[in-house]
């Protein structure tokens, strides 16, 4: 089997290298053929691996590929852990990636960097696979940083745009703040377990739980809480949780296919995956899980609100992604890791679908992203319209859609939890359903329904996108609509994950939700009388009234609640704070240390100062060497006299 795993990981890498280095000679068709072939191989083999593990009962694989280094008795390997969790992630990653590859043929059709783009997204697929397939912390960090770099390169793909190269630097640095915590977490793991290997670390998790960290002479923290929070800081960066979320909306500067692949379906969920993978550690710290819970709910609620006031179609979807990542994080925070991963999977399908649909709209609109200049696109783009409707319904949790199963179970799990912060979390995720429905259908109505607000020239050229674009939309719409029906039972309430996810019996909220579970149909039926569905319906209705039927109401509401609108438009001031306080302070500190510390104190004071002192000494000493004989004679007499005096005094 090992050669299959290697092929899965390496096929996209080989394709990326060929498309990247020999892009000119293989041409455009060559570049997309080879990369699609590479990712296609990975996708088919991943499905085969999933089948083998889930249906053919194959045992999880855990083994090294090669030894990266050995130091101080610690072996750091590159290796794979293929269990039910990683196999599921591999299928999601390669499937969405394959769809995006095909879609890109249409979307990037006229771009000069065609081959480069294909090389990057294949490289991304390789990096993401290395991340999810890893069996140890070092390789996890490799993949973690590698996806970050490819994201950096792709956000800045159009490198002449000032906004793009600002956004990619911002994304990288904010992620590095997360990685800063992540590295400390990894260091703590090594400190207390002496290993970087998942299996060994999890087996010795009790050693971390028993240890304490002396933060100062009087403050002592449980090591497990410190470790888990540090690891979670890494997840906050990659999965864009408040306050490290600021990079994700700006990442929309990149081409739309990568917004779908990287900034919705896969890379941003790496943090969720990582915490789920580390469940044996997180389970041991209530404090860390409460932190996860509160951060997640804050992100889910407050980032969703921002989606309501934004007019850029991609940014609305981006804020929606932030909010949904918050939902997943909430699931982790109540120990419902399976629910988090399940929502990750359904979200990967419907959010990739929504982004690609948005991209299809943007293409039709000649790269106009402002929804105020759209409207009535339904009749021009039927396939995009219908697939986008499927994605939107899944996003708001329409009964029966994939998003319904994952989100409803998640909310039930939060309701069951009694962990510190779970009350706040329940409020956030429940009202979040209303907000989600509101911004989603605001976007949907503004884009596809109502008056056609685009200019005449654009209107004349409106048409449905080519098949390379619509086929991925359709293929993503199918799981978005249906996957919940048959996946909910095994993944959430069955023993799908087996040993891959570890939950203490006392924390098993999903188990308690599962006691009420009697098949998918009954689950849908019982949900019809529960709050979330009605919240969602209310959201859609509100969107219909305010943004389709009576847009004047929206305007007057905006005027009435001007203060709220201002706060939301300014995104709570995070960007302002980062740019006007942190960035300014860092540069001022750097400049100050340089001018004052290096140039004045060290160079002027110490270095040139000592030079001047020597010079001054020299100039004083010069007087002693006057060349006049009587000066020297006088000095000799003085010296002789003092010498004699000294001898006299001694005796």
């Amino acid at each position, binding site marked *: 089997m090992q050669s299959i795993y290697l092929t899965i990981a390496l096929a996209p890498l080989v394709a990326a290298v060929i498309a990247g280095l020999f892009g000119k000679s293989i041409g455009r068709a060559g570049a997309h053929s080879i990369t699609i072939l590479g990712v296609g191989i990975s996708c088919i083999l991943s499905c085969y691996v999933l089948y083998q593990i889930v249906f053919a009962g194959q045992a999880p694989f855990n083994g090294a590929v090669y030894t*990266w280094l050995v*130091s*101080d008795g610690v072996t750091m390997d590159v290796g794979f852990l293929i269990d039910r969790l990683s196999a599921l992630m591999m299928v999601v990653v390669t499937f969405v990636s394959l769809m995006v590859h095909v879609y890109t043929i249409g979307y990037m059709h006229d771009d000069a960097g065609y081959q480069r783009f294909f090389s990057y997204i294949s490289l991304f697929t390789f990096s993401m696979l290395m991340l999810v397939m890893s069996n140890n912390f070092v390789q996890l960090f490799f993949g973690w940083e590698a996806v970050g770099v490819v994201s950096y390169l792709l956000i800045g793909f159009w*490198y002449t745009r000032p906004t793009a190269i*600002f956004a990619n630097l911002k994304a990288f640095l904010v992620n*590095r703040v997360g990685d800063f915590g992540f590295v400390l977490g990894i260091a703590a793991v090594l400190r207390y377990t002496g290993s970087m290997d998942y299996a060994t670390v999890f087996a010795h998790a009790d050693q971390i739980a028993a240890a304490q960290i002396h933060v100062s002479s009087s403050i002592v923290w449980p090591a497990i809480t410190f470790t888990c929070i540090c690891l979670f800081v890494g997840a906050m960066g990659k999965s864009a949780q408040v306050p490290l979320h600021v990079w994700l909306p700006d990442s929309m500067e990149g081409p739309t296919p990568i917004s779908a692949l990287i900034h919705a379906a896969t890379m941003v969920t790496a943090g969720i995956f990582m915490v789920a993978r580390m469940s044996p550690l997180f389970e041991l710290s209530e404090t860390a899980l409460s932190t996860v819970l509160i951060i997640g709910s804050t992100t889910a609620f407050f980032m969703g609100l921002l989606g309501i006031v934004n007019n850029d179609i991609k940014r609305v979807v981006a804020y929606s992604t932030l909010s949904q990542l918050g939902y997943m994080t909430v699931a982790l925070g109540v120990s419902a890791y399976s629910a988090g991963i399940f929502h990750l999977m359904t979200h990967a399908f419907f959010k990739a679908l929504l982004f690609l649909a948005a991209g299809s709209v943007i293409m039709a609109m000649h790269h106009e992203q402002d929804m105020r200049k759209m409207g009535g696109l339904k009749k021009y783009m039927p396939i995009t319209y219908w697939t986008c409707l499927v994605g939107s319904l899944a996003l708001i949790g329409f009964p029966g859609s994939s998003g319904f199963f994952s989100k409803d179970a998640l909310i039930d799990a939060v309701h069951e939890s009694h962990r510190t912060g779970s009350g706040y979390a329940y409020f956030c995720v429940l009202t979040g359903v209303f907000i989600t429905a509101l911004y989603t259908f605001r976007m949907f109505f503004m884009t596809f329904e109502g008056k056609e607000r685009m200019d005449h020239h654009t209107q004349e050229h409106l048409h449905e996108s080519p098949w390379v674009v619509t086929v991925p939309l359709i293929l993503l719409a199918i799981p978005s609509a249906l996957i919940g029906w048959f996946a909910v039972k095994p993944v959430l309430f069955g023993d799908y994950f087996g040993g891959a996810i570890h939950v203490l019996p006392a924390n098993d909220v999903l188990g308690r939700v599962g006691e009420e579970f009697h098949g998918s149909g009954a689950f849908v039926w019982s949900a019809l009388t529960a709050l979330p569905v009605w919240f969602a319906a209310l959201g859609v209705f509100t969107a219909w009234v305010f943004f389709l039927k009576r847009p004047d109401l929206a305007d007057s509401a905006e005027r009435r609640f001007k203060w709220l609108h201002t706060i939301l438009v300014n995104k709570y001031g995070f960007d302002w704070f980062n740019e006007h306080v942190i960035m300014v302070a860092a540069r001022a500190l*750097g400049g100050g240390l*340089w001018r004052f510390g290096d140039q004045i104190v060290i160079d002027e004071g110490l270095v040139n100062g000592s030079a001047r002192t020597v010079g001054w000494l020299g100039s004083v000493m010069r007087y002693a060497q006057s060349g006049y004989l009587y000066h020297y004679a006088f000095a000799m007499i003085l010296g002789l006299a003092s010498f004699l005096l000294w001898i006299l005094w001694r005796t």
Partner: protein
Amino acid sequence: MMSGGYLLSLLIWLPIVGGFAVLFFGDRVLVAKWLSLIVSGLSLVLSVPLWTSFKTGTAAMQFVERSPWISTIHSEYYIGVDGISMPLILLTTFTTVLIVIASWTNVEKRVAQYFAAFLILEGLMIGVFAALDGVLFYVFWEAMLIPMFIIIGVWGGPRRVYATIKFFLYTFIGSLLMLVALIYMYLKSGSYELAVFQHMPLTLTEQTFIFLAFFAAFAVKVPMWPVHTWLPDAHVEAPTGGSVVLAAIMLKMGGYGFLRFSLPIAPDASRELDWLIIGLSLIAVVYIGFVALAQRDMKKLIAYSSIAHMGFVTLGMFIGFQIVAATGRTSGISMGLDGAIVQMLSHGLVSGAMFLCVGVMYDRVHSREISAYGGVINTMPKFAAFMVLFALANSGLPGTSGFIGEFMVILASFKANVWYAFLAATILVLGAAYTLWLVKRVIFGEVANDKVAALKDLNGREFLVLGVLAAAVLLVGLWPAPLLDVMRASTQQLAQQLLVSKIAP
């Protein structure tokens, strides 16, 4: 001790003799260049057996040569390598060839002398790494400065005289104190052999003075804060080749000195004064990290980045004592040492490559100011790809060599104290900030001006040099295991030496 013929001597003297030979062709530039290429290439080829025939299981010196030299003071011509010095010698031969190729057309005056200086410098630097006798070491150590002064002083920029004198005074004063320490130990032991120094009992007071004397010599070379200000000036004024050799190899002399002299000769003093080194190292990482952000000159920025990265070298070397104090166990010491050495080697590759990149742009635009550039990727896409790769390596990206040392040192320092790791790990953010901001301003964006618009992409020679370095950076980053295998026995022995008190009973 394993004898290995005359390979090491050949590696030291071939470039020196070759360098003087090149001087004879002062008027025939092409001959001088080709002769330099042949000599440096031959040195590289000859240094390969050092690696391939190296025995990894032992910390003993290998390729040893020993014969009487200055018998009146019992000084010997005594050379050999272990797992610490051997990779540094390979770094030296590798870098010198690249410098020769990279400098092929960018010097106009006194071409033969320029190449000769680099060859002689190469031999002397290998001598420093190979010497196992105090006097021999000191001779190479001081002699090495001469070609470097000449390189900066003759082929340097407008403020080259200021930079040269500053460089000279800093390094020379430090070295003199080291000489005093060497003589003291000779008077006590009757030998200049380093192994004797390492095993002789010394009181804590003696050790402290010896430590401080060596510290004066090595801290300047590393350079550690606050004796670092010569480096940005020297880099700015040095020609590209000079900057490369300075960053890639000369800065490693300080770290090597700590490993070969300070730690094993004065382990008790090292333990007593480790707070000093750790403190200065962390200042280097954080303070210098911020200072680098404020630079407007590309070479200065990379120079400051070097100081911050070298902070990891000294931190990793001296963290061991506090690991023992904090955990009561020794595990972690040799990871710190390994990390420090890997960081030295990686910094040699990455910062050398960064200076070469600046050199490529300087050759075309004749400015080092960041503001003179912008959108270079539009006219030099191949170059931009290399520059971005090296910048990412400089930011410590996993998969490149720049990651390994930083990572290991952070892991090791966490064992000693959370806050050490915390401060050290700020380089993840700061390093990325100053390096990638540089990339944003220089490489990305619209074409900034006519000069950038007129840029020509890399020629074959430049492509070769940067390509070889890129391959090395990636190879080490993806598979450092062989390197660590070579070093293991030596670093573990050193870790043992640190734990044994030398205070005379």
